[in-house]
């Protein structure tokens, strides 16, 4: 059941300036949330932000009662989060949206995870789930430069498979887009049972052109400006192939690329 939870900030981990993780005490949400789901966070700030912000739950520890988010500083909401003193309280509305599907894959199956920058956010929990289900996973993480890849520290020891880094400038890992790194693996014959991806729209668009011809079943964790996060405002739509618009917060955020009108 969705609920509006009070949460207390207990930990902030900084990967590089403007890239950090925040962990909240929030036991009920920690118990309820599934990999890929998100929460609507109300930031205690001045006149803006007025609306809440959506953040994918990066990981949850039901035992400790904590939920963690990975954040990239963009504007007002994230700047406030970056500055917020420890023990500050916020409100978290969730869990929201659908979750990645893993349960239907046979033990031993191999999957790919593709993340662009802060798109890595939903994957710690998923990777733990994948390992627990006895699957293997290659983790493709792309970024513009080494700084953007600093978030890889959060994945140390979590990846049951290969970690492939790619940076636009080649400073770290393979040079070029992460989608090209994936395409090279696929071209060389690597096969995956499923692909999970999260990143900016241009990455998704490029990725759709890779997974389509490869007939690789895919789950994209999409992002749209959200007013509510639970299907009430119809603000977060994405053009669809089967109908004009998909309501991304309640029908998604995880969507298969065939359903999206690119």
């Amino acid at each position: 059941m969705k609920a509006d939870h009070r949460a207390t900030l207990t930990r902030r981990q900084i990967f590089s300036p403007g890239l950090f993780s925040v962990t909240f005490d929030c036991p009920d949400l920690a118990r309820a949330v599934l990999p890929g789901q998100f929460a609507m966070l109300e930031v205690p700030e001045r006149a803006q932000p007025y609306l809440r912000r959506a953040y994918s739950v990066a990981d949850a520890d039901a035992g400790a009662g904590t939920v963690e988010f990975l954040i990239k500083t963009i504007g007002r909401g994230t700047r406030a989060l970056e500055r917020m003193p420890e023990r500050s309280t916020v409100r978290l509305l969730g869990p929201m949206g659908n979750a990645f599907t893993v349960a239907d894959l046979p033990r031993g199956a191999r999957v790919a995870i593709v993340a662009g920058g802060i798109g890595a956010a939903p994957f710690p929990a998923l990777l733990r789930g994948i390992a627990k289900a006895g699957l293997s996973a290659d983790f493709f993480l792309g970024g513009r430069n080494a700084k953007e890849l600093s978030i890889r520290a959060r994945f140390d020891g979590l990846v049951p498979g290969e970690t492939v880094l790619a940076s636009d400038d080649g400073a770290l890992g393979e040079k070029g887009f992460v989608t090209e790194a994936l395409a090279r693996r696929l071209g060389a014959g690597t096969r995956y049972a499923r692909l999970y991806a999260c990143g900016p729209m241009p990455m998704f668009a490029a990725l759709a052109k890779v997974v389509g011809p490869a007939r690789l079943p895919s789950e994209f964790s999409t992002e749209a400006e959200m007013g509510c996060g639970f299907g009430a405002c119809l603000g977060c739509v994405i053009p669809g192939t089967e109908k004009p618009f998909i309501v991304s917060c309640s029908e998604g955020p995880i969507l298969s690329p065939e359903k999206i009108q690119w």
Partner: protein
Amino acid sequence: MSDPLAVTLGPLTLNNPILTASGTFGYGLEFTDFVDLAAIGGLCTKGLSLKPHAGNAPPRICETPAGMLNAIGLQNVGVEAFVSEKLPKLRACGATVIANVWGDLEDDYVTVVRALEGADGIAAVELNISCPNVRQGGMLFGNSPPLTRALVAKVRAATRRPLIVKLSPNAPDLVESARAAREAGADILSLVNTFVGMAIAPETARPRISFGTGGLSGPAIRPLAVRMVYQVAKALPGVPLMGIGGIAELSDVLEFLAAGATAIQVGTANFKDPGVSGRLVKELTDYCAARKTTVAALVGRAHRGGGRVGGAAGAEG
């Protein structure tokens, strides 16, 4: 004493004056985790049209200081799907349902209202003649008193249900619009819909919303909405009003009641705080109990000179 929260607006009696505003409460069912739908005064559905409607291309919303702009473009499942899929569930929840309707042309409105006549469990119809986010219909009707008059008269003839007409704050003369709607047969006026606004992204110099302009809502507009309710209540005494605009707290509800609204609708606040409407009902109940007063006694107090409620409110030290 009868129920201190019950209110009567012409032919419509509600358990309490806290409703939720059209387009900000989905079809109600999105809120069942947060609000007991039977506990609030009523809910206004997303604007219904005869056929399902796709709405505008994204981006459709953007945040503004203490508010938001939207140009959803009246996306809805259509009246048929509403009646067959949503309404039975709403009835099962015990919700008081107000069907908000719109159309491109006069006849569209009439057809939707007719289509609803057969359905059970609709307490009233609210005509949206004030949506700024469609290229035709919508606000065009609300901004012209003669068009308002003609449309309301036609719809009036098509339904025996209580008829609410939702006014546009963008109208050149709000009181004239209100008078036109009332004279043509509206039982109740609801005000206000959103204000036409615009936000431009500084880096690209393009509007933040694909439609270009959008409707401004949220606490930012509250002082304007309160003034408009006050103004219409003063010009048309005795006409039952529902106040709308930036309501998020009990003090906001009391403000609209004092200005002359008999009931209110909570809008944008539902997005930020989906339990807000239920909480307001509880807070208003406590308020009336503590002061031994009724909602009816709180309506229009600003027009009667005001004064403290319930006597012994200790003087400030």
